[in-house]
């Protein structure tokens, strides 16, 4: 049983404020991307029916107003209510690194049965950021538009702008957020212009000192986001018109998927997640199409700099916290996205892991991206998410990775001697491994009759 919500209190509108920087980031990331058919909705889990429109007015008033927030004042706020109410604090979104844990607190379905749904919690991480436009993999539901998103310290980070989004009718599994500090600054400015000085002061007082100083913020944040995080080993791999993700294992060695870099001797362009310039490389090895291991190895012409090369994991524990890093969904528009989850299954053949499954959201374009433990050890590389071919539905939260334990011996030998022969063994896995990757049952004992 929960404490019963209070009776609704009347409120009046002070202003509608839009965060211009949020709108600008939104237009940059989604606006010019018509072929990708980005859709945003507060409706059900299926994408809106009308395919002709992209995002915007056709999807209801909540979506037409994406990036707009309403500031209200309660009309019957009592003195009793004030007693013992700690002040809400706001943290600058730019000070949080990608992968930082977040908690959303909203009411699914809005005012429908608040006794049951008020302040429902959901956990995730800061998946990506483009200015004040943030993305989280915390599961948000229709009606949570406007919900608060908090850091582990209890500071307000952002408000939910759109709980659900799709790309090319594929549910992306990320929610759009608007940074609270940017929004409050916009609202305070608007209040001053409307002559509401007292309210403007109240909003400004919520902002921490560094968030009030907009000039120094973004640069400091860039340093924070790029300092020593494991996800910086993720790279974008471009091979002709095809692109995907990869992971840098050494200054001149990148691992990716065969379906990203399919042909040996083919030149590829590797773009680091840092601000470093792109580097050309050559595919020195790609498994054959008949191999279940979808792997390619790229040797770079120049060394990658400023990247923390990952330590390979030696243990695979089902249920442990993991994260996936990939350029899926946005490509190079705003760097790689981090999504969190757990290692949901470790499939073994002869007591050796041959396939990993996670609950992290994985999107098209994340193939080849790294799968990390919470301590930053590299568990494997992502090869695919799941699609139901009969319905066409994609399930981003069920995905498959090749464990590093499969690749590590051959890669070590290649790094030491330049010898490709051990990598060629990946073209000849056992039938049991092939069966697993065909999503068939591992043959064990013959079925016994129940008669």
């Amino acid at each position, binding site marked *: 049983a929960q404490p019963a919500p209070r009776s609704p*209190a009347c409120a009046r509108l002070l202003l509608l404020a839009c965060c211009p920087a949020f709108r600008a980031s939104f237009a940059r990331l989604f606006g010019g991307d018509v072929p990708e058919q980005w859709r945003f909705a507060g409706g059900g889990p299926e994408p809106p029916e009308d395919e002709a429109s992209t995002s915007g007015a056709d999807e209801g008033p909540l979506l037409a107003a994406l990036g707009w927030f309403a500031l209200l004042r309660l009309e019957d706020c009592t003195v009793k209510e004030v007693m013992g109410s700690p002040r809400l604090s706001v943290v600058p979104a730019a000070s949080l690194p990608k992968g930082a844990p977040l908690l959303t607190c909203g009411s699914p379905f809005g005012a429908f049965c608040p006794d049951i749904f008020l302040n429902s919690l959901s956990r995730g991480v800061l998946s990506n950021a483009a200015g004040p436009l943030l993305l989280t993999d915390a599961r948000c539901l229709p009606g949570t538009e406007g919900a608060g998103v908090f850091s582990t310290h209890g500071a307000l980070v952002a408000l939910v702008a759109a709980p659900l989004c799709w790309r090319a009718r594929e549910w992306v599994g990320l929610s759009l957020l608007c940074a609270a500090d940017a929004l409050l600054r916009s609202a305070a400015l608007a209040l001053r212009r409307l002559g509401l000085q007292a309210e403007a002061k109240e909003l400004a007082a919520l902002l921490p000192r560094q968030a009030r100083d907009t000039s120094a913020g973004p640069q400091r944040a860039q340093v924070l986001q790029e300092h020593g995080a494991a996800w910086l080993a993720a790279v974008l791999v471009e091979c002709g018109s095809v692109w995907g993700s990869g992971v840098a294992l050494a200054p001149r060695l990148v691992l990716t998927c065969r379906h990203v870099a399919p042909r040996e001797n083919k030149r590829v362009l590797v773009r680091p997640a840092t601000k470093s310039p792109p580097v050309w490389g050559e595919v020195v090895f790609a498994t054959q199409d008949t191999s279940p291991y979808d792997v390619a190895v790229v040797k770079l012409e120049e060394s990658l700099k400023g990247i923390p090369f990952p330590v390979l994991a030696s243990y695979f524990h089902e249920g442990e916290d993991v994260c996936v890093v990939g350029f899926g969904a946005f490509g190079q528009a705003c760097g790689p996205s981090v999504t969190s989850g757990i290692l949901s299954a470790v499939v073994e053949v002869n007591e050796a892991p041959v396939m990993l499954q996670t609950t992290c959201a994985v999107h098209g374009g994340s193939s080849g991206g790294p799968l990390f433990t919470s301590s930053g050890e590299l568990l494997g590389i992502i090869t695919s998410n799941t699609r139901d071919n009969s319905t066409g539905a994609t399930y981003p939260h069920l995905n498959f990775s090749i464990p590093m334990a499969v690749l590590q011996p051959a890669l070590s030998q290649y790094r030491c001697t330049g010898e490709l022969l051990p990598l060629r063994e990946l073209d000849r896995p056992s039938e049991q491994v092939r069966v697993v990757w065909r999503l068939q049952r591992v043959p064990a004992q013959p079925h016994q009759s129940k008669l």
Partner: protein
Amino acid sequence: MGRRWGPAMAAGERAGCVVSARGAGAEAEGPWSCSGVLLNRRAGLVLCHGGIVAPFLRAGPGALQPGTGPSFLGPDSCRDDLRLYVQWGPGRGPRARAELRGALCTPPCS
């Protein structure tokens, strides 16, 4: 969820609210509702999604479309019949726990 999330959960429950908007008898216009954040209880300031009042804009929801328009709209931009309601929980603390004891005796949803 573990202790690590305690401060975030407490802040969320303290600040979380639901906002509803209604017009004067126009069934086609709602009811509209969304989540919100109680920014400051003393001042009674609440921030929520702007879409909640979009159906009540005098100039129509098109006033919010991206373009050359202003980055804010005052209260006069909405019709006079707009009524807004905010509902929030008691949050945590001794007072909330006292209310919880009372709530245990009543059905949670009528």
